[in-house]
């Protein structure tokens, strides 16, 4: 039995070692090296790549990423909770609505992001329509700014908020809401006293998923931010491509990963107490 158990671990374990732990070790060792003349890495060993993170130019990008991810997560909670509530109370149509939430995953994220560009750009659907209606004279600056990045982040990761909240709502004992009404709670009162507190595990799980995804986002800020509103994901990509500074890129990726881990650790601890 224990032999079977050991072998059952082998495929996933092997893959993880080969494609995650070894590359991680490489990235970690690169982060202490000096950039080579044509990309790549060279001696000597240095801490300088980590020190550069505190350069205001890069530090502001890190802070911006943390803040954007936080705002996007907040908006996703505010939009996702009511949506999950609506779906969980739609009786026979539940699966249909749930399907609509999942349908976007059938299309490439890249294609969907381009679709947003067609909607938001100066000659896009929204501006053209508003101009045709005479609401505005000049096109609104909807694309290539923080607003567009936020729209993209919320749009892209909302399902990761809706699904965990939906599943906690589904497990919620309906008799608790009947008991609340029975004791004099009006529907809105019962929602905030009973439903929301009991959905905390789902809200927390969804927030973690959305926050981490947003923090590492690079396609959305790249395409919708137009290279002006860059986030840490774009910075990492730049270092490995145009800037040809692999050691700095490696240090940035490690910092990003450590930030995510620092964020997750307390939640995992609470998860052990049955909250997540």
């Amino acid at each position, binding site marked *: 039995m224990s032999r079977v158990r050991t072998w059952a671990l082998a495929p996933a374990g092997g893959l993880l070692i080969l494609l995650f732990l070894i590359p991680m070790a490489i990235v970690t060792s690169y982060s202490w090296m000096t950039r080579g003349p044509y990309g790549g890495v060279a001696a000597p060993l240095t801490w300088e790549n980590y020190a550069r993170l505190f350069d205001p130019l890069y530090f502001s990008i890190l802070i911006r990423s943390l803040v954007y991810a936080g705002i996007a997560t907040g908006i996703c909670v505010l939009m996702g909770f009511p949506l999950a509530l609506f779906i969980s109370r739609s009786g026979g149509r539940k699966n249909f609505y749930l399907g609509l939430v999942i349908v976007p995953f059938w299309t490439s994220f890249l294609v969907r992001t381009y679709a947003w560009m067609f909607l938001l750009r100066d000659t896009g659907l929204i501006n053209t329509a508003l101009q045709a209606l005479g609401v505005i004279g000049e096109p609104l600056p909807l694309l290539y700014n923080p607003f567009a990045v936020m729209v993209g982040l919320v749009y892209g990761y909302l399902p990761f908020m809706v699904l965990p909240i939906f599943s906690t709502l589904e497990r919620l*004992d309906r*008799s*608790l809401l*009947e*008991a*609340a*009404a*029975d*004791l*004099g*709670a*009006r529907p809105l*009162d019962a929602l905030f*006293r*009973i439903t929301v*507190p*009991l959905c905390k595990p789902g809200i927390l799980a969804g927030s973690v998923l959305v926050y981490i995804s947003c923090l590492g986002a690079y396609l959305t800020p790249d395409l919708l931010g137009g290279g002006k509103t860059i986030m840490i994901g774009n910075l990492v990509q730049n270092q490995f491509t145009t800037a040809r500074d692999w050691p700095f890129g490696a240090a940035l990726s490690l910092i990003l990963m450590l930030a995510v881990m620092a964020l997750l650790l307390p939640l995992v601890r609470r998860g052990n107490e049955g909250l997540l």
Partner: protein
Amino acid sequence: MDAVLELSGVSKQYPGHLAVDNVSFPVPRGSLFALVGPSGCGKTSILRMIAGFEQPTAGELSLNGQRIEHLRPYERNVSTVFQSYALFPHLNVRQNIEFGLKRKGAKEFDGPVAKVMNLLRLAGKESRLPHQMSGGERQRVALARSLVIEPELLLLDEPLSALDPQLRKQVRLELKSLQRSVGITFLMVTHDQEEALSLSDGIAVMNRGKLEQVGTPREIYLKPASRFVAGFLGSVNWLGDVGVRPELTRVGHQPPGNGARSHPARVRAATFLGNCVHVHTELSHGAHITAEVPCDHIEVAAGQDVHVWWEPEDEIHLPESRA
């Protein structure tokens, strides 16, 4: 009779299924009233309609003479003790009990909360969470939570079913004395006839959505209005249109010769139950009669020829067609 609740002509139609069919009965004020019947008989639907979780398709519900069908659950002065108790798992005992008081805009919490907590032996457990408590304690919290808002009527959905059997008898007595001490009308739904008979002042028996009989436990047990009621609240030996309860049936080696109804029978089996013996007999024409007799009453063995008899006044007369 002063009724706190009055049902008249209440029906509940679900798609393809009439759960409650034209039911009317009053619930006397200050009583412990039981609504009994087998599962699926519509008793729970009635309870849910009184609480306001479901709407009757037809009929009227009056609480203190006021129609309440149109009121939402949070507008009705009735409270429910749920079968699963439905305690709020994220709130401690005290917060659970205060929930209703706060919703009803009470100014004073400490006094009423302390009072019900003492009454239900919960003092000192204020900060426990529901999952840290035993089944019996959780039930007392559920009772406290409902009683603290002083409803006109307390609804109890199978109040004893979630407790283990040893606890059940004890809680039964406690429930009755609790009802007496608070004076609030209790309307209890149960499928357990023993529970209904021993606890309640009045019983309504339901079967297949219809009301079969309303009366005191004594009336319902001794003068059942239908074969269903007779059979639901205890066992009955039927000989054509005549029935007699096993505990009123006697077994003897000789006929009693005193005007009692006596039949020669053969013992099929005798089952020892500790406090009594069930003697299963068969009459010459094939009818089966069971007698419940004290252990030391008679020594019988399978195959023995005996006489079974009973007093004519103990007979229940109900034609078979009303089964």
